[in-house]
């Protein structure tokens, strides 16, 4: 465990998520999840489709709230907050990377990366400089004036990764980030995550259904039928202490 840290970055305590509560078609997706993620960890969350991993990701990403149980993000309970507060938490603490990139169309790579900073109220000059630096880091500096439809899948995902880092979030939340890419570009995208983890000590949650991809990560959490069925660490060379 991380010595010297006051506590885990993400702490889920007996998180239950139920849809259509109190109605006939009531459906419990998560049945009491307990999970702790410490700063600097690179965790793969693996599970079949329908296992509840997307719901889990939505809760960790503050897009959704648990029906019962607690979610502490950096020690703060985000369960009972308003929509606006949830927006602010996502903006400041979560960096999303999606399977289908989800870049804003008709908007340049540069402007896409700037967007979270626009919502954070950072001034124009500062955010332009940061966006450029981030694009440079993912090797997209020369394409910063291109709109998404002029970029390949791998390039789009690099821009999306740059965007996810815009406000220097506590967690990178990556939902099948290589799901729409061929094996070669997948590799290069994964290399970026590994580099971010190794060199910048970013906390990364990688949600995937691919065991191969998960096996690259120092910690693998397996979700099945709304429960965590295994939580393995140290499967990799640079595994966390």
């Amino acid at each position, binding site marked *: 465990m991380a010595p010297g840290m006051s506590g885990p970055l993400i702490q889920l305590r007996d998180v239950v998520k139920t849809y259509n509560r109190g109605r006939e078609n009531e459906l419990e997706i998560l049945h009491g999840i307990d999970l702790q993620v410490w700063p600097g960890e690179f965790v793969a969350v693996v599970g079949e489709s329908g296992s509840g991993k997307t719901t889990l990701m*939505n809760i960790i*990403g503050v*897009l*959704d709230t648990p029906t019962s149980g607690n979610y502490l993000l950096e020690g703060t309970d985000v369960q009972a907050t308003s*929509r*606006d507060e949830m*927006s*602010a938490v*996502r*903006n*400041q603490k979560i960096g*999303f990377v*999606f399977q289908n990139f*989800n870049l*804003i*169309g*008709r*908007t340049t790579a540069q402007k896409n990366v700037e*967007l*979270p900073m*626009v*919502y*954070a*109220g950072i001034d124009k000059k500062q955010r332009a400089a940061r966006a450029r630096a981030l694009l440079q880091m993912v090797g997209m500096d020369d394409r910063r004036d291109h709109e998404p439809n002029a970029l390949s899948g791998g390039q789009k995902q690099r821009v999306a990764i740059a*965007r996810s880092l815009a*406000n220097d979030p506590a967690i990178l939340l990556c939902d099948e980030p290589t799901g729409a890419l061929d094996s070669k570009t997948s590799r290069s995208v994964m290399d970026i995550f590994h580099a971010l983890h190794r060199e910048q000590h970013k906390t990364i949650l990688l949600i995937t259904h691919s065991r191969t991809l998960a096996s690259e990560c120092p910690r693998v959490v397996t979700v099945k039928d709304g429960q965590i069925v295994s939580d393995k660490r140290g499967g990799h060379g640079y595994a966390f202490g």
Partner: protein
Amino acid sequence: MPLGENIQLALASLRAGKMRALLTMLGIIIGIGAVITIVTIGDSMAASIRAEMASFGARNVTVEVRQKDEPGYFDSADAEVLGGDGGDGETFEYREPAESDLITPQMLAEYRRVFAGQLAAAAARDELGSVSVQNGRHKAGATLVGCNADQAKVAGLALQAGRFITDGDGEDGRAVAAVSDLFIQQYFGGRLTADETLGESFSAEVEGRTLHLYIVGVYRYQPPDGAAPQPHDGTTNTEVYLPIHTGKKLLQRPVGYRSLTLQSQNQADSRLFLQRTQTFFMSYYTRNPYFTAKASSMESMMNSMDKMTQNVKLGISAIAAISLLVGGIGVMNIMMVSVTERTREIGVRMALGARGRTILWQFIVEAVIICLIGGMIGAAVGIGLGSAGATMMGYPARPSLAAMAVAVVFSMAIGIFFGYYPAKKAARMDPIDALRYE
């Protein structure tokens, strides 16, 4: 999120769908364009008519001897004309006023005495008949007008040569006349200059009687603005002024005036002047069974005309407002489509930290920009069409800046009003559902 960002975003979104944006704007363009066109034509017309009336002396008060049962052409439209009980038109029968029905020179003298110090001019004017006067192969059309000295002042006549009729001419019964430059041009075939015609004479035949008149003055003819000169036997009929007493005596007409034109020194208080003049002259007619005196002014006519054009503008603008309403609904419809199409984008923006009201403003700004651009195009089209229309109708174009400003503000209001609902729909989206939207 600052407004500037939203505007850039909205413009980018509109650029991406130019044709759609233009079609959406069309309703607004037509609506605003129609209003501005009407207002421009109306304003140009009113301004031009007003200027024309003012040049005739808008503040002149006219007192006329009118039959008591005559259906009034002023008082039905407007209560500005005071006194007189308008009878109903069906029983109206024209009656020639007798000498005792006319305004007498004594009344005028008394009026001058009572209103001394505030009266600038009191002109008597009576048309004695239209004639054609012959001089060899040259001829000229003339409307013989009996008048007094003040007529030159109220009619704004500019003398080119000689003098105008004086009150002394009338008292002495002199057969003199002031004619127009056009008259001498036609009558003398251009052989004599204005100065050379002074002292020349001509004869005019009215009702079988011949008037032999000596020219004492020549004034500059001003064709009525906008109207073509009226031909009379191939000539232009201009007014020949002679002393009213001389004319009446020679034609053996009853002495007295059918109408007077009165001018107040204090132009600011024209309404009070009108009222007091009316009261003064009406007092002479209380026991007259058939006739009365009515005072009116161009200003009162102008006011009623303004009211009328205002009403017409309002009425047509109301119809145009319906077009704007339809345009606004069109904007709302397209914004609904846009919100649905961009559900995924809205989800992404929310995931990246956009708050509900940030999304709300994004779409409201977009709707406002559509309407604003539409409104500005509409205003430009309206100014163009309105100016062209006014010019075609013979009035100098007067584009109304106020109307343009109102149009622009109004189109913005339409954008906010009709953009709000779709924007609210976008702002209320659940980011999870929105992100998953295909």
